[in-house]
């Protein structure tokens, strides 16, 4: 009898151990990739994780701020996920300061992230010598998308190569009876337009002085004033129904040939392709007006909340390994419409616009972070408030300049 009991005990332990090993490390991942294309992309990562022996538990929450709010509340509540999505930005700096994030130093050193990742990204995910996030992708913020049909109708023969040529082309589009610039009047889109003008017209040095260094002299300079004037000048080329419009409704105008151009991130490509158009045929993509325009990059990362649970630690480690593989990066980025983060990524299979972006990425002078890479969420928000008020009201330029100076002072 004693022997039977021992045998049963051993059998049950063996079975449970075997089933635990079979289940694989379980990783719950919070993210905000909920649309069709994004969902297909994250499924690739989930599948790769499963192939590596793990169990992927998906917690998708639409809306970046909602998703991040849930992550933070879960961390506070003592029930953190294994991994959570953030933007490549200062959004998770506070969490690092509270010592609530785990590091990924071993994978970073093994894969030489110092050398293969663009510098702005490294500055964000490496804090005080430790690596805290795994970058998933790169988006470029300020592509110029244009409809070839609209350009033909307006008599524009070639792509604009300077700010003056851009305004001239916008005038031609207006004369042809089209909407020159398709725009959705939401605060972040106005922020995007401003970044484009600052990068293309102000140049790399002014951009970095204002956005990264928050140099008060640069903000109050005449060069920056000219940038603000050019930004406001763009407002004359959008249609009156633009306030509140979603970005993809503005893209729809370009797709239909009703509008000439849109300035939007590379996620707009998905809309064109879904409507059956191809780059170079029905629409064109310009990463910048000249060959040395700063290439504004942003992206998404996974962070790993600190935990004591051995199972979760294993899951996190496995996830970092899987996500950092070039094959997984490629599969994810192709479906998402972004480009891989590693500078040594293979660009075959990506469309013409993406390949252009990946080539630019390799030029060390061109990639520069979007404002939220350098500014805290609060500063970025305050800047956005001034810009959207300036765009929508009759605020004089000097007042806008002063408001930006005080917004970026804290």
């Amino acid at each position, binding site marked *: 009898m004693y022997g039977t009991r021992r045998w049963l005990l051993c059998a049950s332990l063996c079975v449970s151990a075997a089933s635990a090993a079979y289940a694989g490390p379980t990783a719950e991942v919070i993210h905000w990739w909920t*649309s069709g294309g994004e969902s297909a992309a994250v499924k690739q990562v989930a599948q790769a994780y499963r192939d590596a022996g793990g169990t992927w538990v998906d*917690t998708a929450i639409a809306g970046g701020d*909602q998703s991040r709010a849930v992550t933070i509340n879960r961390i506070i509540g003592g029930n953190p996920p294994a991994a959570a999505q953030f933007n490549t930005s200062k959004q998770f700096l506070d969490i690092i300061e509270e010592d609530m994030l785990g590091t990924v130093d071993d994978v970073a050193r093994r894969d030489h992230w110092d050398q293969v990742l663009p510098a702005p990204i490294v500055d964000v995910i490496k804090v005080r010598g430790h690596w805290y996030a795994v970058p998933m992708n790169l988006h470029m913020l300020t592509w110029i998308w244009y409809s070839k049909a609209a350009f033909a109708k307006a008599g524009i023969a070639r792509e604009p190569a300077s700010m003056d040529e851009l305004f001239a082309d916008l005038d031609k589009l207006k004369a042809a009876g089209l909407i020159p610039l398709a725009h959705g009047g939401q605060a972040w889109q106005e922020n995007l337009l401003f970044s484009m003008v600052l990068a293309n017209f102000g140049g790399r040095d002014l951009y970095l002085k204002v956005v990264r260094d928050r140099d008060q002299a640069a903000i109050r300079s005449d060069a920056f004033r000219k940038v603000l004037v050019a930004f406001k000048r763009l407002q004359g080329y959008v249609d009156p129904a633009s306030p509140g419009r979603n970005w993809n409704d503005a893209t729809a105008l370009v797709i239909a040939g009703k509008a000439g151009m849109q300035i939007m991130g590379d*996620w707009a490509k998905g*809309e064109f392709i879904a409507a059956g158009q191809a780059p170079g045929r029905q629409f064109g993509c310009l990463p910048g007006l000249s060959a040395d325009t700063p290439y504004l990059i942003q992206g998404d990362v996974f962070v790993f909340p600190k935990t004591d649970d051995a199972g979760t630690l294993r899951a996190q480690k496995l996830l970092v390994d899987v996500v950092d593989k070039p094959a997984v990066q490629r599969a994810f980025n192709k479906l998402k419409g972004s480009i891989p983060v590693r500078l040594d990524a293979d660009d075959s299979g990506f469309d013409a616009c993406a390949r252009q972006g990946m080539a630019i990425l390799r030029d060390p002078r061109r990639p520069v972070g979007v404002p939220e890479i350098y500014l805290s969420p609060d500063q970025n928000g305050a800047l956005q408030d001034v810009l959207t008020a300036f765009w929508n009201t009759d605020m004089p330029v000097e007042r806008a300049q002063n408001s930006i100076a005080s917004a970026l002072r804290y």
Partner: protein
Amino acid sequence: MNPDTTAPPMAAPAPAAHDQPAPAVRRARRRLTPARIGLYVFLLGAALFFLLPLYVMVVTSLKTMDEIRQGGIFALPHAATLEPWRLAWSGVCTGAACEGVRTGFWNSVAITVPATILPILLGAVNGYALSFWRPRGANVLFGILMAGAFVPVQVMIYPLVRVLALAGIFGSLPAIVLVHLVFGMPVMTLLFRNYYCGVPHELFHAARIDGGGFWRIFLQVMLPMSLPVVVVAAIMQVTGVWNDYILGLVFAGRDHMPMMVQLNNVINTTTGTRQYNVNMAATILTGLVPLALYFVSGRWFVRGIAAGAVKG
């Protein structure tokens, strides 16, 4: 005014007299005076205003995305399709899973049922105690509840998260039910308190003289005649809980995400493509439960408030 009055005898003054003249009044009213015509014109006009958004939603949900892109929100669909509805229910992506909004349905039910019953019970007890027994300091507490009803819920999220985490139940079904209880208590207490204030207090005094204690009077006298206000409270609470997004998102835990979170995942993408037809279908699908409840209990709803729920 209305011959088929719906107020229970307890609270309505002089209920009995209007039964006789009803047939005569009704027949006399059938004459189409200009006033009657004006009345129907007003009601029909108002109905059109109210139905306009629903028309746009339904029409949009039957079009293809290409048609929607071309504009014209009032236009009828050229080739109506039910595909958006099928997608909304079971096919649209809400993350890595592409199973539509139906995945959240049972979670919402599991949250709504207790989060309606408990606040109603507690609101009834509170209202009963506040209006009949009036313990000292109770009105102060009621005042705090009323002030709290004005605070946006997001402000209270952090303290609630910490307290629930300390209690070890953060991110579970009891947590979200408890949270809905906290936020539902002000309105529920208000409804029941006003209802019981409209009930004649002679009834209460008579029951006390008969020897009834707090719970006996509540369970045997007051609760049975509270059916109308219970239905009112149920409608308001079910609508509030079913349509809640932010509390379910933060407190329910990943295994109990309500339908509203799925709906939000479908509608609110940041940089993904938006399928407006599926969004509209999904919204109507999600709204069917409160709507069905109104339809079924519409008569009671009106009847309940008549019995004094809203008397100050």
